[in-house]
């Protein structure tokens, strides 16, 4: 018996912040759209990796009050998240960020998808192969039942890792390992410990004491804690050592990723054991949630019709074909000294041209999210979820255009 091969107008690889935006946008125009996601839920970094802030949603400004930078999907998500958590944007130093809850993000994504009748969601699915055959892409969908081919006229790579470039055998670039941004490891804690300034500082002192005494690894020094907004729930974030110290660091390699997951859990376990034994306010604290995966900030990027650079961002460069604004400063996390922020001159946002979403020389292919065409420096700005919503929406629109 031969089965008719499923065919779509648009296929989106990866259901993170960018892929979700791309797929929902394409489907809203009526295009028959397939969204392919490897986890059992959508949201990517914001859910599987527990990254609990939407950065890049707001303009950089000295005046109080956060102002949304990109209309459309990014603003819609912000509105839905605020309605879900009851928490609005928070000023952190010079920046406005929106605290988000991964559990709510999963539900919001489900509802957005369910509302689109022409959107087909395929969870628990990896892409095993991609090739262009005549006027359509042939895509191998890989699940536990085996590989099943589908076709789509237009393809959007929202994988974060430029997986389509890997399968087509070129057209991408990746920073040398020592420069790649360090991965984030975020986990959930149940604790009634206070998050007031003085107790945070006290906790920081305890961590240093633990490292000094050889009881905690040096990676623990960068740990930060933030109340989730739910009673007794705290998110902790650590930057894991990356290519600056780990030889052969390659965030595309499962062996490397395995080591990251194990290291993240070991550090987290050590920190919580240490704090709960050493401090009254942390007594009884326990780890309540592991991330599904460590948060990779940077890996392979597409080379597109234009390569957005750090120089463009510093100058607040604008483009005739821009599809979104990049408002987050370049946030470098290349070494153990903590984040280094580079702000644009006068705080002006830069445009992201549509050409950054079009891999050079390949028709009917678009890219969204953190693997769009930029250099290493610009990627340090555009990788954040607030911007990924906007590039995802633009890719979805371009694919049906």
């Amino acid at each position, binding site marked *: 018996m031969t089965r008719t091969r499923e065919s779509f107008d648009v296929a989106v690889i990866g259901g993170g912040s960018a892929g979700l935006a791309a797929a929902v946008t394409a489907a809203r125009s009526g295009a028959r759209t397939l969204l392919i996601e490897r986890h059992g839920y959508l949201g990517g970094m914001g859910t599987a990796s527990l990254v609990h802030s939407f950065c890049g949603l707001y303009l950089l400004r000295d005046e109080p009050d956060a102002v949304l930078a990109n209309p459309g999907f990014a603003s819609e998500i912000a509105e839905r998240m605020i309605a879900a958590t009851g928490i609005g944007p928070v000023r952190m*130093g010079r920046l406005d960020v929106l605290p988000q809850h991964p559990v709510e993000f999963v539900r919001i994504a489900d509802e957005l998808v369910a509302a689109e009748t022409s959107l087909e969601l395929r969870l628990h699915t990896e892409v095993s192969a991609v090739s262009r055959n005549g006027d359509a892409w042939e895509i191998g969908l890989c699940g536990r039942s085996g590989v099943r081919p589908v076709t789509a006229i237009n393809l959007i790579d929202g994988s974060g890792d430029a997986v389509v470039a890997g399968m087509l055998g070129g057209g991408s670039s990746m920073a040398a390992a020592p420069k790649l941004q360090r991965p984030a490891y975020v986990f959930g804690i149940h604790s009634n410990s206070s998050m007031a*300034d*003085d107790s*945070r*500082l*006290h*906790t*920081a*002192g*305890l*961590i*240093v*004491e633990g*490292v*000094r005494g050889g009881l905690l690894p040096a990676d623990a*020094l*960068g*740990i*930060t*804690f933030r109340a989730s907004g739910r009673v007794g729930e705290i998110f902790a974030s650590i930057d894991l050592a990356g290519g600056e110290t780990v030889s052969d660091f390659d965030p595309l390699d499962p062996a490397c990723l395995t080591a990251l997951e194990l290291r993240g859990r070991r550090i987290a376990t050590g920190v919580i054991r240490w704090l709960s034994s050493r401090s009254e306010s942390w007594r009884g604290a326990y780890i309540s949630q592991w991330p599904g995966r460590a948060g990779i900030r940077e890996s392979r990027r597409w080379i597109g019709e234009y390569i957005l650079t750090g120089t463009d961002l510093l100058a607040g460069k604008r483009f005739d074909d821009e599809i979104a604004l990049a408002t987050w400063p370049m946030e470098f996390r290349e070494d153990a*000294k*903590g984040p*280094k*922020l580079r702000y644009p001159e006068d705080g002006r946002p830069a445009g992201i041209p549509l050409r950054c979403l079009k891999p050079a020389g390949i028709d009917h292919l678009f890219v969204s999210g953190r693997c769009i065409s930029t250099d290493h420096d610009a990627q340090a700005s555009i990788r954040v979820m607030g911007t990924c919503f906007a590039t995802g929406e633009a890719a979805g629109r371009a694919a049906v255009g």
Partner: protein
Amino acid sequence: MEVSKKTTSPTPTELIDWLNDEGVLELDWDFPEDGNLAEAGLDSMAVMQLVVAVEDRWGVELGPEDLTKANLATPITLAALIVARTS
């Protein structure tokens, strides 16, 4: 050659330069001695870096009890803390 770490304790101005040089904070060249360090980015994460760097530079081990908002408020209070723990 042994380099003594316990050189003279910092003045608030020296501390501002040193914080910049160490990359603990990025302070403007005219950051005031009584400027607000928390607002300049001295959060709990930067504090961990600070404590390690202070130990390297002045041989002073700041403990959890030293790390209060009051002690870390400004270059003046931070320099005073380091001076107090050096002597």
